[in-house]
């Protein structure tokens, strides 16, 4: 497994602008993400944080700007291509298959890596069976890692919210991503669940060497676990740097607390 050294730039976002009709969701945003770091995107409601993730992830096509991932520059790419390149994500509003078990949900994350054809898979024959065993082994490692062994066969819809969030993370990890995008992984959690989730995020970063980009509202969490922070407000970048730098940035303070004129 990886050693914990923050490396070179792995993901470079250059001059991204995204418009929905006359609304400027993002204007001329640039920032980069280095290998193995935990990078946070923060900002008040409507600042454009989720839009930013959706651009990186290929869900939205920005009108201007380009994104470079591991030296490959792309402008128009769909989410499947992005996933194949090694970028995975979790969702702010969980998008799990509620009726399926935890194992099956996480197995769907292996989809891109399954090579045998549909016919062989349906018969569970020869190479398909062998392949499924390999994938299942990887999924089991994730289950062990996220400490959800007790819920392997429980339908996801029956689990409490905090655990569903964990399954969502598990499914993203199943892709063996190089970069993991987390959209508000701690929204709606209580203090203890947040602590657990922070622990898991740091462990993912440490054990798998995964680069992490996360959006989060809880400032305490962001300041504790991130290496660097980007601050957005009304679609513009107003701050970028270590948690310490961002905390002392005048513009950031006024965006969050308001200013007196």
């Amino acid at each position, binding site marked *: 497994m990886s050693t*914990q050294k923050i490396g070179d730039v792995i993901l470079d976002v250059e001059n991204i602008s995204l418009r929905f009709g006359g609304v400027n969701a993002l204007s001329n945003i640039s920032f980069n993400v280095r290998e193995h770091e935990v990078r946070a995107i923060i900002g008040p409601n409507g600042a454009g944080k989720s839009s930013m993730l959706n651009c990186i992830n290929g869900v939205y096509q920005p009108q201007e700007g380009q994104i470079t991932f591991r030296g490959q520059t792309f402008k128009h790419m769909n989410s499947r291509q992005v996933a194949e390149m090694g970028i995975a994500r979790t969702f702010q509003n969980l998008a799990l298959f509620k009726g399926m078990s935890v194992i099956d949900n996480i197995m769907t994350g292996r989809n891109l890596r399954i090579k045998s054809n549909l016919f062989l898979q349906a018969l569970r024959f020869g190479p398909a069976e062998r392949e499924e065993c390999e994938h*299942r082994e990887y999924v*089991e490692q994730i*289950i*062990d890692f996220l400490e959800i*062994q*007790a819920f392997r066969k429980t339908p996801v819809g029956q689990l409490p919210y905090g655990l569903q969030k964990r399954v969502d993370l598990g499914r993203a990890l199943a892709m063996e991503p190089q970069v993991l995008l987390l959209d508000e992984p701690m929204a709606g959690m209580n203090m203890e669940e947040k602590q657990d989730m922070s622990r898991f995020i740091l*462990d993912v970063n*440490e*054990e798998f060497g995964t680069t992490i980009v996360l959006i989060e509202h809880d400032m305490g969490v962001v300041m504790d676990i991130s290496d660097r922070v980007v601050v957005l407000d009304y679609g513009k970048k107003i701050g970028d740097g270590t948690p310490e730098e961002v905390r002392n940035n005048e513009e950031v303070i006024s965006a969050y607390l308001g200013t007196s004129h």
Partner: protein
Amino acid sequence: MQQTFPGLLMAHAGQRPDAPAMREKAFGIWQTLSWSKLAEMVTDIAGAMHEAGLQRGDHMVVIGSNRPRLYATMLAAQSLGAIPVPLYQDAAGAECVFPINNADIKFAVVEDQEQVDKLLDVREQCPQIARIVYDEPRGLRKYDEACLTAMDDFLVQGKAFTQKNPQFVAGEIAKCQPSDVAAMFFTSGTTGNPKGVVHTHNSLLDRASVGARFDKLTPADEVLAYLPPAWIGQNIFSYAQWLAVGYVVNCPESAATVTIDLKEVGPTYYFAPPRVFEGLLTSVMIRMEDAGAIKRKMFHHFMDLAKRVGPAKMDGKALGFFDGLHYALGDLMVYGPLRNNLGMSRVRVAYTAGEAIGPDLFSFYRSIGVNLKQLYGSTETAVFVCLQPDHQAKADTVGVPCEGVEIKLSESGEILVRSPGLLREYYKNPTATAEVLTADGWYHTSDAGFLDADGHLKIIDRVKDVGRIKGGRFDGAMFAPKYVENKLKFFSFVKEAVAFGDQRDRVCVMVNIDFDAVGNWAERQNLPYAGYTDLSQKAAVYDMIKACVEKVNADLSRDEMLAGSQISRFLILHKELDPDDGELTRTNKVRRGFIADKYSALVDGLYADKTEQFIETQVKFEDGRTGSVSATLQLRDAQIFEPVKQAA
């Protein structure tokens, strides 16, 4: 023949190398560790430990849950003649300081990051700790303390050592004598520091094999190890007896998966304290109440039958033809599926111990065909003192003295035990040792009890709590408060009870109702109430509790020695007894003396034959504020029964 732990391991590895020794779940599948693989692992760990400087006679702490590699570690330490000291994995760091310093421990093998953090936190108080080996590397990658070693690395070092010195560990094992110290267990002292109970290979293994012979355990038996290994009970069941018999120990994936693992493994030999059995029963009952009407009817029909004939069947008595057929049908429709659901389909022998078990709870399991029995023992006696033979299990006794045990009663009614399984001493504590161990080898249990007509031991109470009735109808009779309180607490409506009677002319009791159970009952009776205090003083509730008290009295009247402990008056307290108010200990045991002082007005009222009494008490809220609760409580009489002489 007398043996040692590592000697037994090597014997199993030699005689049946491929037989399973342990199983643990990995990748969602049970992975088997054979005796030969285990022996190899133990040899490697022992080699690495020797290189790391562990000497014969040194102590070593092991902290963690039931993991094969931690069990292998204990065996490895014993192979070198060192002494493993298992500590509770949920103990706070500060609680580990005394044992570590008391036994001058330099070497620790722990499960995971949590335990490593705990030891690193107390390093200033325990500077002698030189090496911490951890089993699970997760989260520990960034730790750079020189004293930390991963078990994986440790095994590699050990393998290299074994290759260079293939006969070294075997030679060390040969030097181990059965009379050597094998392990040390710290007992949780309620007052003062914990005491290290020193056991030899012989004392532990002797008891383990006596228990195994008693229940005819075989290498084909299966056990699920899910209680803390620092507790002597778990240590005997999944370590000493495991090696003595050679059965299979299964380690659950995590504490959360125990019920699932129980179903998957289907143990044949099972052990749990009463609260586990109670929890299982409650979950079954709740799910049955939610089931469809037909299923519910069927369940209750067959459970009534089981209640009537089940215990007799378990005691080996023949049922009538019709009952037998009826029970067989019930077994097919209800009892079998229920046992399967509880993970007890294959249970041949199940034990409960540690505290008194309610008769209803006890007979529930026996009536559905689980051979649940009780045993009596403690850390100091290496568990096995008394065991209930098959077909002779009773709810209120703990069985007959097992092989090698002598029991006698002291003048004060204390149970004294002499057996090959007694502790050698309390570590570095000759005063405490002298208090419990006489020169001629009798151990003072500090329990009061007696042998009944069938030769079964009956535990009444702690010796220091047993009193005498003075004056009145039962002048001079024995009074055992805990015994009376327990009998009341077996009713689900009674949460706590406090009995008074020592040096008084009769027994009076204060009862705490169980708010959930009584509240639920009140709703079904259409009995409106405003809150705890209101509910507790309802006439209907008093009538119901009175019925419970009188059932206890009827029960006590049949008991020759304790007929005098029948309850003549009682009251229901208006507030719940609470540790925050000092009325209970942190482990929820009633502090009788404190309560007697605090509620002296009520106690006086009970003995002065008043029918009601006003009381005002201070209460402490959880946020630290104080307030007061006042109420006028009713004091009631209960019927006393003539003592019945039972034909033996």
